[in-house]
């Protein structure tokens, strides 16, 4: 296990104050803070190596290309991908899923085909599929959520069948903290000759990921939620499937040969990396992966499992609070609501005390509707958070409630 006090020293922003109080940053599911090692990598890149990658026959271009391709290797190893040719840099999870929905979906979906999702998905794993079926005549089916926040796997077994072409599911829910049985869904998909896409936005930053063990065909995640800079994320896909897909964006770098009336495509992964990529973002993500590897993802998961359970327990002591999601086997975040203080007012009042949480629908409007609410408050933890910070959250909640109660 690592020493939390020691690693907090690596995150300069954790030293700052907000409204005269120490920052308690509990909005990690939205984006994580960045360690000095990542920030320094970005500075080094611009101070020493900046050049456009590939094709350049000069020293800086070679250095930048090597750093970029090294980052690809690191990220591929991080998710235990069988090779790095299937590792495509994107802007993040949203772009990764759009890439598959567009480049795979429009080529392979026909009328009568079905895509199976769940009713707990983030908009980023729902709207791209709505667009794909609108253009192809395929249709969407949804695995329902049970009242305890887990998926109805019996329904999943009925829904995934011969018409299914792809199953797409979030690995860890950004609202419920449920860790979904994606291995089982991948097995059901493959039994029916369908593909499996895993939205790893909330799992890759927080737990060991092995795409071979998950048995998925696509895995999407965002770098900025796992200590990396914003604007850089990745899609991993099985190379034999990626080879058969149409390109996503057309332009420079993704081509082999261009004529005035047609073109041929570059090899993987470059076929899907059109134009100048977010070079420093990818290199920064490589540095973030180094940092996570050094801590050990088993340790990160254990720290967050313990801290999440502690926070869940402390919050459950607050009278009248509603906690969402399952009781056990949770990711390190907690969504909740108080009957007497609206989530927005709550986050505003907590901000006053330096405690940063998020409130709203968390880009999961269908799930909010399923829960019969418009919004929740959400505290999400990461590898640098402490039990003292969970205590600060609870104390601030109690004071926010007293403040509102005084007007009743």
């Amino acid at each position, binding site marked *: 296990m690592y020493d939390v006090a020691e690693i907090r020293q690596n995150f300069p922003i954790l030293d700052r104050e907000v*409204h005269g109080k120490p920052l308690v940053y509990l909005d990690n599911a939205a984006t994580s803070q960045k360690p000095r090692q990542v920030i320094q990598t970005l500075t080094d890149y611009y101070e020493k190596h900046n050049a456009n990658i590939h094709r350049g026959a000069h020293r800086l271009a070679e250095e930048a290309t090597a750093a970029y391709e090294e980052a690809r290797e690191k990220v591929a190893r991080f998710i235990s991908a069988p090779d790095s040719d299937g590792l495509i840099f994107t802007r993040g999870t949203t772009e990764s899923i759009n890439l598959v929905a567009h480049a795979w979906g429009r080529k392979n979906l026909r009328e009568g085909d079905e895509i199976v999702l769940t009713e707990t998905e983030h908009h980023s794993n729902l709207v791209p599929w709505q667009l794909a079926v609108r253009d192809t005549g395929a249709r969407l089916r949804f695995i329902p959520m049970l009242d305890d926040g887990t998926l109805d796997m019996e329904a999943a077994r009925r829904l995934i069948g011969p018409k299914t072409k792809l199953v797409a599911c979030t690995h860890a829910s950004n609202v419920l903290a449920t860790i979904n049985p994606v291995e089982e869904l991948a097995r059901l998909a493959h039994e029916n000759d369908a593909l499996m896409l895993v939205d790893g936005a909330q799992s890759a930053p927080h737990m060991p990921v092995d795409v071979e063990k998950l048995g998925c065909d696509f895995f999407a995640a965002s770098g900025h939620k796992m200590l990396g800079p914003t604007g850089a994320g990745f899609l991993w896909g099985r190379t034999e499937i990626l080879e058969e897909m149409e390109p996503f964006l057309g332009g420079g770098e993704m081509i082999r040969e261009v004529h005035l009336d047609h073109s041929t495509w570059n090899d993987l992964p470059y076929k899907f990396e059109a134009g100048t990529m977010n070079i420093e973002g990818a290199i920064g993500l490589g540095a973030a992966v180094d940092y996570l590897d050094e801590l050990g993802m088993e340790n990160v998961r254990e720290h967050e499992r313990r801290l999440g359970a502690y926070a869940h327990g402390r919050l459950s002591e607050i009278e009248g609070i509603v906690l969402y999601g399952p009781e056990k086997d949770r990711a390190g975040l907690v969504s909740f609501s108080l009957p007497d203080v*609206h*989530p*927005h*007012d709550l986050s*505003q*009042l907590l901000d*006053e005390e330096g405690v940063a949480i998020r*409130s*709203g*629908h968390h880009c999961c*409007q269908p799930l*909010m509707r399923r829960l019969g609410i*418009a*919004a929740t408050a959400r505290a999400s933890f990461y590898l640098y958070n402490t039990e003292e910070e969970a205590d600060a959250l609870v104390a601030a909640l109690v004071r926010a409630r007293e*403040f*509102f109660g005084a*007007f*009743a």
Partner: protein
Amino acid sequence: MMRELYTQIIMDHYQRPRNRGEIDNPDIEEHLLNPLCGDEVTVYALFEGDKVSDVKFGGRGCAISQASASMMTERLMGKSREAAEKEIKGFKSMMTGETEFPEMDDLAALKGVIQYPSRIKCATLAWNAFQKGMDDGG
């Protein structure tokens, strides 16, 4: 600082909303969603000739959106269409900082919201719904 945002007047309207409810066969029934947060408001109004004879609101939201809706119903009751439109324009220009809040006005209780740009949409939600209802022929 919180007392600048959550003033006594706002909290009073939030805890004891005026004109909360529905109107049967209304001339205006406009449902608006704040896409940022999922909060929603429905504004109902009845006209007698040119005058607002009844106005009510429903929905769910934060203290700012609910208090602002409650204050709006009091403000628009009895107003002509033209006067209502003027009130809405005036309120929105105060919320964007283009004009000052009159000091002796209850609405000045919402002045603190201007410092929190993400919350301005909460305050203007019901007012936008009423305007949209009138624009749509209500």
